[in-house]
Structure formats: structure tokens, C-alpha cells
């Protein structure tokens, strides 16, 4: 009962996490990174859950760790309300748009072969590849702490582009070079 009242007042953090990230996810066209400024606004300005610096730190941690960058949402939830906060924030960010993607997949199957859909799919390919290239460049700029880091990025690009070997080798070399020289 108390929780219901607090939820209606909008100050139950679990409810705020769920509703806030659900709303943000629905405008995240192009990927989770597209809505980082919106997340910052929700977390710092609207609810005062943390400072700008703390938000930036969490984001940097999620970028440095493996896995989808959108996992920063889980870290935010964890900071705000522990394990429950983490699960609720991630549910808000993933369940509504996940259902949408699932529904779209079903719809696409039913229409498979429709000429206009094939054309739209092919038309989105250059945007997808261009955005991958852009995200690599942005990551490279952020990682460029010195000439060695830039050299690592360039060497790794060439290795992944031209070689069939696993890109994990590039990460191993990068990690060792980082430990020794960065």
C-alpha cells in the first residue's frame, strides 16, 4: 500500500527506474548509445540519483568492460536500488522494445519476399555499416591516450580487416601492450 502511494507520487525508485528506462528505450533508434544524454538527464537532473561525474564513471566502466554498452543501465539500477534496481532498470530498458523486435520479426516472416520490404532492408545496410565504422572511429578517439594507443588501433584495424585469425589476438596484444606501456 505504502509502495503504491509512493509509486503514484513518483518517488519509488524501482518504479522510476522501470518507467524511466522504458520511456528512454522507445526513443533509442540507432542503439542504446543514442540515448546516453537522455539517461544522464533522467539519472542526474530528474532524480538526483548521482552526480554527473559518477554517471560518467559508470558509463566509462560499462564501455571498458565486455558486453553490450547498454548494460550501463544495469549498473545505474544497482547503484540506485541494489540487485532489484539492476533487474528492474534492465527490464525497463529491454522488455518493451524486445517485445517490439519480436513482433517485428514475426511480421517480417509473414511478409518475407515482399519486394518493398526487401528494398527497405537492403537500403538500411549502408547505414548499418557506416554506423559500425563511425562507432569504431569514436572508440578510437576516446582510446587515443598517446601514440602507442593510436598505433594499437591502426594495427588492430588492419589485422581484423586483412586476417582470418580471431580478433581476440588483437585484444590480447592490446592488453599486454597496455600493461607494459600505458
Amino acid at each position, binding site marked *: 500500500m505504502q509502495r503504491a502511494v509512493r509509486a503514484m507520487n513518483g518517488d519509488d525508485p524501482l518504479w522510476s527506474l522501470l518507467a524511466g528506462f522504458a520511456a528512454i528505450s522507445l526513443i533509442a533508434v540507432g542503439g542504446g548509445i543514442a540515448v546516453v544524454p537522455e539517461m544522464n538527464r533522467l539519472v542526474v537532473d530528474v532524480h538526483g540519483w548521482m552526480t554527473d561525474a559518477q554517471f560518467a564513471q559508470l558509463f566509462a566502466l560499462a564501455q571498458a568492460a565486455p558486453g553490450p554498452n547498454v548494460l550501463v543501465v544495469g549498473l545505474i539500477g544497482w547503484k540506485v536500488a541494489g540487485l532489484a534496481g539492476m533487474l528492474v532498470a534492465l527490464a525497463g530498458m529491454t522488455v518493451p522494445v524486445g517485445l517490439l523486435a519480436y513482433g517485428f520479426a514475426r511480421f517480417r516472416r509473414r511478409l518475407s519476399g515482399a519486394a518493398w520490404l526487401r528494398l527497405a532492408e537492403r537500403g538500411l545496410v549502408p*547505414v548499418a555499416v557506416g554506423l559500425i565504422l563511425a562507432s569504431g572511429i569514436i572508440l578510437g578517439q576516446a582510446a587515443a591516450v598517446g601514440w602507442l594507443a593510436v598505433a594499437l588501433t591502426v594495427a588492430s584495424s588492419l589485422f581484423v580487416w586483412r586476417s582470418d585469425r580471431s580478433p581476440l589476438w588483437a585484444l590480447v596484444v592490446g592488453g599486454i601492450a597496455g600493461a607494459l606501456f600505458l
Partner: protein
Amino acid sequence: MPQDVAAKPSLGAFFLAYCVIGLIGFGGVNAWARRKLVEEKRWITEQDYAEVLGLGQALPGPNAMNVAIMLGERWHGVAGSLAAVFGLFGPPLVVLVALAAAHDAYGEVPLVKAVLAGIAAAAAGMVIGTALRMVQKLRPPPAVVAVGLAAMVGAAFLRLPLPVIVLGLAPFGILAAWWSARAARGA
């Protein structure tokens, strides 16, 4: 370059593949998902993956998750989508929380920071190299390349909002695809 596709994955193999993709996905997951699904497992062709990724970006939400859900649905329905999402998010979430807890307890460990900085630089190269590899295999006609370059410049240098880029360039991409297909048929 062989583009033949292996048989569809079993649910377990698909789940495990997405666990690995999540755990090694430094610098974002899409480049690693492509490596695993297209090159190592051959469950899907280069063109097919690029199209699903394009749809995943045009739909709202995390695009790697949208791709995982669409591929899961294709091969195993609801169970496939759930397997992909839990594989993609579960293992790296555990790693991330452990890192955050260590960060809270010990502050910044210089060696860990240096290793992650080196990995970040290499991971950026992994993402750039993946884009170049895709271009090489997809062999897009010039009009399509122009749309891709516009997306790259808009996101990396002009720093335009991603929804503006995706929705703004989609008509040009479609036009370029249509025009190139017509030119190819005419030739």
C-alpha cells in the same frame, strides 16, 4: 569467398554462441556477433546479417539485442529469442557488477586500468576492421557506398543524433539500393 550457410543452430549452440559474444564483446557487441555468426559458425550470410543489423538499428532499443531477438525468433521462436537475450546480457552483467564492486572497494587499480586502456584501443580497431571487412565482402555499388560514408561522417564527425541519421538516411539508402539494382538489370 564461400557464402554457403550451415544448418540452423540448435537452441543450446545458439545460446552458447551468444554467451561468448557477450563475454568477448569489447567495444560493443555487433562486430563480435558478426564474427561469431557469419565467419565462425556460418549460420547466416554477410548480406543477411547486415540486413538484420540494419533493421535492428531502425527499430528502437539496443540494436545488438534487436538482432539477437530477430535471429532467435527465426531459428527457435520465443525460446530462441529468450536464449539469445539471456546469453547476451547475463554473463557480461556478472563481469560488470564484479568490476564495479572491485572499483568501489579498491578504487582505480593502475594495472587494470592500463590493461583496459590497451584493450579499448585494440577493440576500436576491431570495430573499424569489421566495417572494412563487411564493405569488402558486400561489394556495394558507388551510390550505396556514398550513403554509408554519409552515415559515418554524420555519426563520427558531425556527431548528429543517431535517430536523425538512421531515419534521415534510410530513404537515400533505399533509393540507392533501388537505383543500383535497376542499373545492374539494365546492364
